[in-house]
């Protein structure tokens, strides 16, 4: 029998993916424009890109945990359409920010 549900993890990590993608894009622009941020990121792990990756992955996991604990532990309530729009929208927007930054602002 067909049902229309996805797991709490699918929703939590899906929403978190969109957040992490945007954070990735914003962090890219911020570190390129701020020598202080770039230097700080270099000092943390020896290379700015390693710090960048670890930061984004941490955001991904952290927000998934937060979203999963909402609504008394039942997680966020979203329709599949809303979830898809958030994920695809987040990924596309993040991509546009990154490409746009290096095309026009760097």
């Amino acid at each position: 029998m067909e049902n229309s549900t996805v797991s709490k993890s699918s929703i939590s990590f899906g929403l978190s993916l969109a957040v992490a993608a945007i954070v990735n894009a914003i962090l890219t622009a911020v570190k390129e424009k701020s020598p202080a941020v770039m230097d700080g990121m270099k000092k943390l792990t020896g290379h700015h890109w390693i710090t960048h990756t670890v930061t984004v992955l941490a955001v991904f996991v952290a927000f998934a945990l937060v979203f999963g604990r909402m609504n008394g532990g039942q997680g966020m309530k979203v329709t599949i359409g809303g979830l898809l729009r958030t994920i695809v929208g987040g990924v596309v927007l993040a991509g546009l920010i990154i490409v746009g930054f290096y095309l026009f602002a760097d």
Partner: protein
Amino acid sequence: MNEIILMLHVVFGIACMVAAVWLFVDVLHASEQNIARIRRVSLGAVLAMWTAFLVGGYFYVTAYKADKAIILAEKNKPWHFAHELVMETKEHLVIILLLLATYLPIVAANNLATSKDARKLMLWLTATIAVFALVMDGEGALIAMGVKMGLLAK
């Protein structure tokens, strides 16, 4: 050794892309008979992506500096974009691809045979991964061409 590392990066990246396309087709015909395979291939895809990412990341952090200098040499000006635009975007876009691939087995854990929503999510996810991986592959090719042109430039 660096050349082998770079080739492994490409091989595992392509493996992830092929797995994503495989999954797209398998999910279109999701049933109790192929759910186990979908989940195995999803795990394979994420392992391939993480391997490609770590291997490529290792090359980027340790050896790319030399290639960057070749691309950005004064005599290679028409190909400076291979680093200034292509590599700079690739090293940050690929993190999004890593997130998408990591999300794959989480979605695959749903009962794809009975959940229309889960299948829809999986189809969009695998299609996005496949397209993204293709773009990354293309960017990698442009970067490699930038190095080649830099070496050939007079």
